[in-house]
């Protein structure tokens, strides 16, 4: 049981990193990674929303869709749940904690179309995760996203002052650097073998 959870956490953060191995959430990964501070803010917002979204979509799936045999409505229901969840979180934070809103507010609206959030919900249901496993997977997935985007922001801050060929400036060089980071994450491939055997 605990071992399963540990495996899920390691898998979501390192072995199957959401961004670099599963290609989920590439748009914010490229879009808001220019500065370390914004990358950090985005990361925290994603961890927060992803954990909540995993838990709530699980409740909808197993409390509503599966019992009523409405599995074909999965896509429509998930995206609506996530969109309203983000709106709701935004309103709650705005009312209760202006400081937190200041930090996360601008990232929340973009999160609705972050495919990592919807992606984690689909992964949870396809892997037949329990409620606890789903939530942990959502949280760890968010941590994996944060790790990748924060590391990448560090790389990009250096790229800004590096001499790159004119045609590669901007998105192309960012993609190539992400590729090299992805090679680095390959090093974790055998982690399971190493830990659990």
């Amino acid at each position, binding site marked *: 049981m605990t071992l399963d959870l540990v495996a899920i956490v390691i898998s979501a953060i390192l072995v199957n990193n959401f961004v*670099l*191995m*599963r*290609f*989920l*959430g*590439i*748009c914010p990964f*490229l879009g808001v990674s220019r500065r370390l501070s914004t990358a950090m803010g985005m990361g925290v917002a994603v961890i927060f929303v992803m954990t909540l979204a995993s838990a709530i979509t699980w409740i909808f799936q197993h409390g509503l869709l599966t019992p009523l045999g409405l599995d*074909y*409505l*999965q*896509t*429509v229901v*998930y*995206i*609506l749940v996530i*969109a309203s969840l983000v709106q709701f979180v935004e309103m709650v934070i705005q009312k209760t904690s202006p400081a937190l809103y200041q930090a996360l507010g601008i990232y929340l609206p973009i999160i*609705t*179309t*972050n*495919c990592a959030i*919807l*992606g984690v919900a*689909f*992964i949870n249901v*396809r892997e037949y995760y329990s409620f606890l496993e789903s939530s942990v997977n959502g949280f760890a997935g968010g941590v994996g996203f944060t790790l990748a985007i924060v590391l990448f922001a560090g790389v990009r801050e250096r790229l800004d002052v590096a001499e790159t*060929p*004119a*045609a*590669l400036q901007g*998105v*192309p*060089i*960012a*993609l*190539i650097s*992400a*590729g*090299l980071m*992805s*090679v680095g994450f*390959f090093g974790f491939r055998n982690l399971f073998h190493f830990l659990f055997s």
Partner: protein
Amino acid sequence: MSRLRKLVDDFRNGIIPENPLLRLVLGMCPALAISTAVMNGFWMGVAVTFVLTGSNLLISLIRGLIPSRVRIPCFIVVIATFVTVVDLTMNAFLPEMHQILGIFVPLIVVNCIILARAETFASRKPALNSVVDGLGMGLGFTLALVIISSIREILGTANLVVAGWRVFGAGLPFNPAQVMVMPPGAFVTLGLIVGALNLATRRRSRRAACREEARS
């Protein structure tokens, strides 16, 4: 005549000038994730084209009925409906491809291209233009996907399999670089293609500027 001309322009716009993937850099997640083999890229492109055309048509038809404050949720519901249609159809007729594309079929819902076209084009233009725009954008996306996935498949497996047929017979005479069909290959390939396109554009505009100078 000028209306026809406008339609042709709308169609061509998505293929080269505003290619969603290579120019606007939208819809990266599926492009990177499933471009390991050319058939995956092709079917993903077809699925996106269908959703894009369908949602553009429907949104354009109901654009007068949607209050602008709730337009984004309305667009998302329309898009999600078309994605469900694609998801179920693929599951029924192409079960193997559906398995390979995995969660990236339902994830078409959050593909930025579709919402972007709904917001900037379909909610403002007549139905026919919106359909043509959807087809053009979809074709541009499919072409870009096919190019990326062919490069990755050729370099990564030394062969190209199109609908079960091996294009290069026993394979090309080099050792396949497996990293190309793995995640790092996706990032590097797309980065280099976008870079090459930038280079071509710069060359062309510089040449145009030279010609301009020579004339004056």
